[in-house]
C-alpha cells in the first residue's frame, strides 16, 4: 500500500476521532446519547440520513452490479430512491411527533404494553444484526482487498472504530461521522463521474451508444434481463426496497434527532436530493467501470463486482484517486455500522432494559450507562457473528433486512398512525408474522439452498423460489395486522384520538402553556 493511501486512511481515522472527542463533551444525557439532544438542523440531518443510508452495498455494490449487469444493477438505485417518498409521505412527520428514541416508543405511544415494546425491539435487533453482519463481512473482505490486511484484523478494526464513536460520542459523533462521510462520498463520486463523462466526450447519448459495443452483451447491456430473469423475483425485490426503507430502525432513529416535524420534513428533502444525485451517478460509475476496466478485470478482483469503483478510480485517476476512493469506501462502512450499533443499542438498552425490565424508572445517568453497555453488547455480538460468517455469502442479508423492515415494521407503523380500530393484538400479530414469515421464507430460499455446491450455504433444492420473500411477507405482515385486530375485541378510540391529534398537530405542552 502506498504512502498516499495510508495518509488518506489515517486522515479519516484521525478526523473521525477528533469528531468523537468533540462530541463526547456534548454527550451527557440519554437524549444526547440517542438523539444528539434533538438539535440537528434540516441540512445536517439530511446529510446524516444520506450518510447512514448509502452503505458500501450502494457505493461499491451498485457500481459493480451496473458494470456487470447493466440496467439490472440500476434497479437497486431506483428502489432505494423512490423509497424516500414512502418515508416522507407516510412515516417521517408522525414518527417525529409521536416518538422519543426508538420505533417502539412511537408504537407504544398508542399501545403501552411490554409485549408490544418487546416485539418491536426484537424486530429492530434482528434487522440490525442481519444488516450489520452483511456490512462487517463486506467490510472485512473489502479492506482486505484495499489494504492487504487479514480479514479478521479488518473486521476488528472496523468493529473497534464503530464502538469508539458510539460509546464516547453517541448520536452526535455518529451523525457527524455520517455527515463527513456523505460529503466525501459525494465528492469522490462526482470526481469519478466527471472523469467518466470526459472519456465519453461529455455526451450522455454518446455514452449509451458506446456502451452497446463496450461489453460482451452488446445491445442487451442497456436492457434488463442480464441478471434477473424471473419476473416475480425482480418485483419481490423491488417491493422489499421501496417498503423496507421506511421501516429500517437506523433510518427511523434519525428523525428523533431534529426538533420538530418541519425539520424532519426538510431533512428528508435534503436526503432525497443527495441520495438521488448519488444514484444517478451510479450509472457513470457502472458504465465507466464496464468500459474502462472491463468485466473480466472486475471479476478477477472480486466475483461480486465490489471492486469496480476503486478499479475505475485507478484507471482514470491513478493511484491517488484509487487511494481516495478506497478511503471513502472505508468511511462509508464506518458511518453505516455506527448508525446500526446505535439503533441496536437503543432497542436493547432503552426498550428492553430501561422500559421493560426497569419499567422506565431510571435516572438519566443510569440510562446513559445502560446505553453504553448496550452499544458494546451489540458491537461485540456483531463482530463475533461477522468473524464466524467470513466464508459465507451473506450479501443477501442486506435485502433480507429491508424485507423484514417492510414486513414487520412498516405495517405496524402505518396502522398505528392511520387506523382507528387497530389494537395490541393486531400490532403483535403484524410484527411477529412479518418477521417470522420473512425469516422462514429466506431459510428455505435459493439464498440458503442450491443444488450446485458452493452457490449457496447448503446443498439442496430450495422449497421457496423467490430469493427475496417481500412479495409474500409484506402482504402477510399487513394482513396479520388486520386479522389480529379483528380477532380481538379490544379497541381504545380515546387513545387513537390522542395519537391522531399529536401526529397531525405536533401539539405538546409548550404549545398550550405559553
Amino acid at each position, binding site marked *: 500500500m502506498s504512502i498516499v493511501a495510508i495518509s488518506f486512511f489515517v486522515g479519516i481515522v484521525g478526523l473521525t476521532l477528533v469528531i468523537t472527542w468533540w462530541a463526547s463533551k456534548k454527550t451527557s444525557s440519554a437524549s444526547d446519547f440517542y438523539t444528539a439532544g434533538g438539535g440537528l438542523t434540516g441540512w445536517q440531518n439530511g446529510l446524516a440520513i444520506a450518510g447512514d443510508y448509502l452503505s458500501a452495498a450502494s457505493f461499491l455494490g451498485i457500481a459493480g452490479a451496473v458494470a456487470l449487469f447493466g440496467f439490472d444493477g440500476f434497479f437497486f438505485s431506483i428502489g432505494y430512491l423512490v423509497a424516500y417518498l414512502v418515508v416522507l409521505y407516510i412515516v417521517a412527520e408522525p414518527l417525529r411527533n409521536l416518538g422519543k428514541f426508538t420505533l417502539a416508543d412511537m408504537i407504544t405511544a398508542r399501545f403501552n404494553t411490554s409485549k408490544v415494546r418487546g416485539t418491536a425491539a426484537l424486530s429492530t435487533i434482528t434487522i440490525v444484526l442481519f444488516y450489520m453482519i452483511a456490512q462487517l463481512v463486506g467490510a472485512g473482505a473489502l479492506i482486505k482487498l484495499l489494504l492487504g490486511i487479514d480479514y479478521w484484523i479488518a473486521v476488528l478494526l472496523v468493529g473497534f472504530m464503530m464502538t469508539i464513536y458510539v460509546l464516547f460520542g453517541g448520536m452526535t459523533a455518529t451523525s457527524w461521522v455520517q455527515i463527513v462521510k456523505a460529503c466525501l462520498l459525494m465528492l469522490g463520486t462526482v470526481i469519478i463521474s466527471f472523469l467518466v463523462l470526459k472519456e465519453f466526450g461529455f455526451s450522455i447519448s454518446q455514452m449509451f451508444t458506446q456502451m452497446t459495443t463496450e461489453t460482451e452483451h452488446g445491445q442487451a447491456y442497456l436492457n434488463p434481463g442480464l441478471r434477473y430473469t424471473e419476473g416475480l423475483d425482480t*418485483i419481490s425485490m423491488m417491493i422489499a426496497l421501496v417498503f423496507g426503507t421506511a421501516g429500517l430502525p437506523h433510518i427511523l432513529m434519525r428523525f428523533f434527532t431534529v426538533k420538530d416535524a418541519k425539520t424532519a420534513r426538510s431533512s428528508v428533502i435534503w436526503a432525497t436530493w443527495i441520495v438521488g444525485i448519488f444514484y444517478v451517478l451510479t450509472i457513470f460509475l457502472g458504465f465507466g467501470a464496464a468500459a474502462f476496466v472491463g468485466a473480466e478485470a472486475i471479476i478477477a478482483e472480486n466475483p461480486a463486482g465490489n471492486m469496480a469503483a476503486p478499479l475505475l478510480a485507478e484507471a482514470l485517476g491513478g493511484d491517488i484517486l484509487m487511494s481516495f476512493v478506497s478511503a471513502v469506501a472505508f468511511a462509508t462502512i464506518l458511518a453505516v455500522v455506527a448508525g446500526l450499533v446505535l439503533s441496536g443499542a437503543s432497542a436493547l438498552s432503552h426498550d428492553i432494559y430501561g422500559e421493560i425490565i426497569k419499567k422506565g424508572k431510571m435516572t438519566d445517568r443510569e440510562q446513559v450507562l445502560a446505553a453504553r453497555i448496550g452499544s458494546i453488547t451489540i458491537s461485540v455480538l456483531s463482530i463475533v457473528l461477522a468473524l464466524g460468517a467470513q466464508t459465507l455469502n451473506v450479501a443477501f442479508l442486506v435485502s433480507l433486512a429491508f424485507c423484514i423492515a417492510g414486513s414487520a415494521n412498516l405495517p405496524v407503523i402505518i396502522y398505528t398512525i392511520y387506523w382507528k380500530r387497530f389494537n395490541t393484538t393486531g400490532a403483535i400479530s403484524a410484527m411477529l408474522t412479518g418477521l417470522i414469515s420473512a425469516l422462514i421464507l429466506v431459510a428455505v430460499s435459493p439464498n440458503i439452498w442450491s443444488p450446485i455446491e458452493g452457490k449457496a450455504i447448503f446443498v439442496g433444492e430450495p422449497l421457496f423460489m423467490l430469493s427475496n420473500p417481500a412479495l409474500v411477507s409484506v402482504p402477510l405482515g399487513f394482513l396479520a395486522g388486520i386479522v389480529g385486530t379483528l380477532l380481538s375485541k379490544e379497541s381504545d378510540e380515546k387513545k387513537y384520538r390522542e395519537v391522531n391529534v*399529536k401526529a397531525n398537530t405536533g401539539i405538546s405542552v409548550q*404549545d398550550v402553556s405559553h
Partner: protein
Amino acid sequence: MATNNNAKVDIIDYDAIAELPSFKALVKRKNGFLWSITAIFLIAYITLPILTSYTKILHQPMIGDITGVWIYSAGLFVMTWGLCHLYVAKANSYDKAAQAIIEEYKQGGGRV
C-alpha cells in the same frame, strides 16, 4: 422522567381537539392527499419491473441508443424530486391549519 412527561401531556384535552370540525377537516384533506399521491407513485414504481419482466415495450431505443427503461427510470427520479417539493408546499399549508387549530383550542378555553 418519562412518567413525568406523560403526566404533563395528559393535561391537554385531546378529545376536544379531535372533535373540532377544523381538525377533522384537516385530517381528511391531509390523508386524502397523502394516500392518493402514495398510490400514484407506488403504481408508477412497480409498473417498471412489471413492464420489464413481462413485456419488451421499454426495451426499444428511444433517444439515440438510450432505451425506454432508462427514460422511464429518469421519469421516476424526476417524479421523486417533484413529489418531494409538492409535499413541502402542501405540508406548509397543513402547518398553518394545525397552528390555527391549536389557537382555536386555546381560545375555546381548552384546559391547559
